[in-house]
């Protein structure tokens, strides 16, 4: 499929068609009739402390019986209004976590058309809804329509404005003792991205013996991202981002036999990555006429020689012998194709057995045909003043998976279940690059291009390239290949028994076998020009022009087989008609692990209970415990995640009041033996092979979560809501850099909310909501800006039920 066709399809503006259709259908302006029942919700109930103006959906004061017109029962609601927001503190943290600004909003809109006789021309039922338009960071549009046995269609468009700037992320934590002192106030990896996701699915003849499925998804991630690159020092890059993924789907199902369905699905995914990177800023100057802009990077720790011991001279200009960037650019448009085929079946042809199976094959290809990278500056370690890299890369992912499951109903009470999965993927990758480098001693030195004419024997002239003993090859041709493979088989065998109508249990055994292979090979043809042509060309002859060429090969491989066994059990009891208990556990053992933090032993326990003493009271509780271990030599990994929760909901049928309460205590812990380098070394650290020191990577996080909301309806036309959510976390972790604060490990996040809804007249409800956001870290700030913020968002709206 050509690129233009892709663009055409993408830009047919399915989203615009949905909006247009919605606008057209909005023309069916109707008036509400007598109040009968509440408007059905749109499919998503949201926490009022996060999505502000709605409140508990069950408390809306409007009732909308709809209007019959054109053979349809039409119900329509719209909520328009505006937000007024103000905040204090860290603006980018506000944008990262909340991002609600002031302005007019189409807060919500919904339209439902239903044909009571199911005799509609194009459709029997149509539902259109959206929220968040006008400036909220998240908005969604959903359209569904269907006609009986002919088809059903669902389309959804979602947009997420993602601002990210948590300033400790990727922060070099420059110490104040550096000269100059350059604190990094924002994360070098900020994001200002918008993700637009459209998904459309059409099912034809959904109730027939032969059924068809068509689907299309369009996912765009666009905006500006900041990144960094390490070349002597770390410079910040700006990265205009455009990643587009299109997914096409076709499927057919056939009921070949009674209670048996055979299915075939074809998928095709195409991803385009069109991001390029350039140097973000040149904030310093090198001496010259006029001064020469240069970037010293974001890392300033002059005591450690970063970017160098004296980056700024007494003249105020940059030290020309320092790591720095004049310019940097990088581009490479990669294209990834994912065709995938899937055949599956389900059968209950035999009353005593349910079968399901699926086989899938896909071969994806990633091509980056033209990679270009240009650097100009100085890398003091190698004396590189510039380099140009060109090349191409490719990778494939071949995946074969097979699933088969059977449930045998031995009797009405006893079932045997077996579930087998085979999963094999392999990813070969290859990279061919050529790098040409130029060398000079300082930023102000002009690098010499090698030429036999300007660099004659004895190859020491000042017009020769000025290498140091640690200079890399002048010309590097590199062929690198990588291979990753995992083959996995898992079989789960379970017995399920219903002791009585009120209690049942299951017990089972799971066996898992994994083989992981990871290998690399590298062949480098390195050419060294004079001066110092033999600097890394040991044993090779010097050519007549003074150059030296060598081939360096390397290879590495890892093979990790893992066999794992699990015992799984569970009990479920409906103790009384009002009390339910569920308990399940998994005990896992593996003889190996691929990573140091993957468990070799695992225990999971989950207990859930619900109690409904009366219809309008719902009490529930839960305990969830996960314990992981990898106690192999040198690793000492211990982890747990324990959660204890309770919740209570009171919602009397009269709808005059309601209360919703919940509390959770979460205990997260991890420790792992590590070897690291740090100077000065922490007190008590032991050597694990100089200069490495032993330590325990400790992470402990204890979190309390409380949430409560109340609604009151003292009169039919008035509803008031009040809510509060608080998350309070304390913790500790190993901190190796003295400048690093505990940051997100100790914080409080308060989210009170209040709202009033008053039915001004039939079909018109005035609503106002107040949300407060208070994020505070109880730790020192670190060599950057405080991350705390507080903010208010008041939303005022009118809700119509037309």
């Amino acid at each position, binding site marked *: 499929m050509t690129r233009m066709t892709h663009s055409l399809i993408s830009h047919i503006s399915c989203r615009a068609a949905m909006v247009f259709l919605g606008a057209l259908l909005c023309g069916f302006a109707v008036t509400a009739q007598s109040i009968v029942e509440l408007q059905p919700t749109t499919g998503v109930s949201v926490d009022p402390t996060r999505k502000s103006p709605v409140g508990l959906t069950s408390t809306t004061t409007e009732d909308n019986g709809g209007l019959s017109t054109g053979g349809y029962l039409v119900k329509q609601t719209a909520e328009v209004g505006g937000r007024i927001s103000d905040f204090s503190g860290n603006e980018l943290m506000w944008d990262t976590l909340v991002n609600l600004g002031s302005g007019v909003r189409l807060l919500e809109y919904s339209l439902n058309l239903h044909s009571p006789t199911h005799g509609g021309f194009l459709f029997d039922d149509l539902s259109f809804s959206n929220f968040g338009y006008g400036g909220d960071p998240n908005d969604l549009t959903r359209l569904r329509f269907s006609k009986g046995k002919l088809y059903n269609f669902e389309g959804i468009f979602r947009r997420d404005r993602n601002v990210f700037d948590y300033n400790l992320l990727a922060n070099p934590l420059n110490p104040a003792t550096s000269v100059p002192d350059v604190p990094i106030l924002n994360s070098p990896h900020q994001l200002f991205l918008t993700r637009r996701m459209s998904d459309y699915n059409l099912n034809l003849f959904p109730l027939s013996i032969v059924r068809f499925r068509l689907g299309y998804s369009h996912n765009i991630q666009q905006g500006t991202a900041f990144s960094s690159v390490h070349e002597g020092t770390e410079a910040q890059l700006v990265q205009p981002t455009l990643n587009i993924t299109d997914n096409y789907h076709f499927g057919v199902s056939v009921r070949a036999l009674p209670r048996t369905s055979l299915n075939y699905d074809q998928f095709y995914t195409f991803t385009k990555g069109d991001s390029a990177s350039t140097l973000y800023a040149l904030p310093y100057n090198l001496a010259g006429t006029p001064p020469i802009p240069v970037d010293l990077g974001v890392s300033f720790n002059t005591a450690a020689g970063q970017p160098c011991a004296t980056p700024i001279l007494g003249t105020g200009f940059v030290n020309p012998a320092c790591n720095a960037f004049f310019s940097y650019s990088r581009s490479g448009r990669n294209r990834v194709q994912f065709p995938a085929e899937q055949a599956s079946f389900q059968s209950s042809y035999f009353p005593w057995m349910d079968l399901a199976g699926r086989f899938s094959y896909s071969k994806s290809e990633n091509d980056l045909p033209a990679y270009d990278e240009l650097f100009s500056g100085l890398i003091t370690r190698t004396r590189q003043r510039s380099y140009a890299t060109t090349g191409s890369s490719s990778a494939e992912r071949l995946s074969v998976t097979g699933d088969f499951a059977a449930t045998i109903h031995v009797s009405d009470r006893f079932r045997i279940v077996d579930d087998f999965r085979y999963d094999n993927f392999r990813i070969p990758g290859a990279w061919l690059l050529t790098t040409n480098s130029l060398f000079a001693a300082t930023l102000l030195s002009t690098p010499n291009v090698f030429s036999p004419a300007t660099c004659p024997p004895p190859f020491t002239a000042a017009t020769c390239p000025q290498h140091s003993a640690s200079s890399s090859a002048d010309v590097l041709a590199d062929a690198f290949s990588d291979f990753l493979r995992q083959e996995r088989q898992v079989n789960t065998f379970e017995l399920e028994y219903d002791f009585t109508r009120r209690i049942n249990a299951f017990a089972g055994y799971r066996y898992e076998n994994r083989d992981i292979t990871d290998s690399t090979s590298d062949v480098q043809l390195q050419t060294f020009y004079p001066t110092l042509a033999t600097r890394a060309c040991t044993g090779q002859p010097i050519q007549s022009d003074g150059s030296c060429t060598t081939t360096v090969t390397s290879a590495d491989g890892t093979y990790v087989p893992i066999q794992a066994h699990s015992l799984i059990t569970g009990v479920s009891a409906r103790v009384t008609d009002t009390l339910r208990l569920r308990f399940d556990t998994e005990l896992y053992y593996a003889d190996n692990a691929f990573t140091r933090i993957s468990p070799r032993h695992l225990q999971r326990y989950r207990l859930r209970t619900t109690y409904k003493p009366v219809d309008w009271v719902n009490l529930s509780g839960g305990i969830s415990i996960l314990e992981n271990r990898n106690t192999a030599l*040198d690793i000492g990994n211990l982890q747990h995640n324990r959660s204890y929760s309770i919740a209570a909901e009171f919602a009397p049928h009269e709808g005059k009041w309601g209360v919703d309460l919940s509390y959770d205590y979460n205990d997260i812990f991890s420790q792992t033996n590590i070897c690291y380098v740090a100077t000065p070394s922490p007190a008590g650290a032991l050597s694990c092979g100089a200069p490495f020191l032993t330590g325990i990577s400790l992470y402990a996080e204890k979190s309390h979560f409380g949430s409560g909301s109340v609604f009151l309806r003292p009169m039919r036309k008035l509803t008031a809501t009040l809510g509060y959510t608080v998350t309070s976390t304390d913790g500790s972790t190993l901190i190796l850099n003295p400048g690093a604060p505990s940051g997100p490990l100790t914080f409080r996040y308060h989210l009170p909310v209040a709202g009033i809804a008053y039915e001004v007249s039939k079909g018109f409800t005035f609503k106002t909501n107040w949300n407060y956001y208070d994020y505070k870290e109880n730790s020192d700030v670190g060599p950057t800006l405080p991350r705390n913020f507080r903010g208010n968002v008041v939303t005022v709206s009118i809700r119509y039920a037309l």
Partner: protein
Amino acid sequence: MKRFILLPILAIAVLLASALALFSAEPGEKRAAAEKSKAGADQTKKYARPTDPALYVGSETCKTCHEDIYKNFEGTAHFVTRLEGKFAGHKGPEWQGCEACHGPGKDHVDGGGDKTKIFTFKNATAQESSARCLDCHRNGEEHSNFQRSEHLKNNVGCVDCHSPHHAAVEHALLKEGQPKLCYGCHLEVKPEFSRPFHHRVNEGLIACSDCHNPHGGFLSRQLRSTAAQDVVCYNCHADKAGPFAFEHAAVKTEGCVACHTPHGSANPRLLKRSQINLLCLECHTLTVDSAAPAIPSFHNQAQKYQACTLCHVAVHGSNSDQFLFKP
């Protein structure tokens, strides 16, 4: 030590509750069960539909007493069972209208509305009630694994989440919208989505069912997958899917959850650790049996090297650098 005390206590508590259930069934309940069995109303897990047309009265008859429920039923997708013609290859009164789910109604009508002569979902077990639903809804990948699902295995049946007659949410006839419906049992998940860095579930942008199939599947935690049978995360985060010329192997073998907590985290980028260098060091450290290469000796953690991703930018994989310096 605490967990070793906790486990026996929990086990004893559950066993006690089970014993209570075994011996505490009310006399009325036992009598009702016997009568149902005697009446022939099919309570078995595999629902065998009686095919004798004489046993069926039609939905219009049901409407005479249950008018409100019928009106609600008319507005739902289940009304297609009343349409003419074959229904998924089936034909006959046993597949139509109210009696498609509640079974033949003649005895119930002749008995003056005797509740014991008709199948009611209220007192049915999860297996029994779900068997009725699955008789039509079993096909297609969305529902075909429900019989083996974690939900049904733990006695959570169709009508625990869906309400054919009293749905609060029209689409899929849910009792409650997501995520509140899921939070009702999965209490430990709600606080995770309230942490500062989280997927936008509470905001309504993402639903639990976008990543998990509540009806079960072939993968653990009832997770969905991409079309290429890769982790579900890549459905949205396609730029991380690769394949890359240089893979960060753990991402592909252990999954995104090796480093991230997908629901929500106190840490930025939903990471498991507040200090990124510790997350990296836990794998990339000198050890006798680690597949991951150790950090070099000049990576002094007390200086600038604590920000691993400042240099190793392409941690999910790279097409241009074996050390993941560049994407």
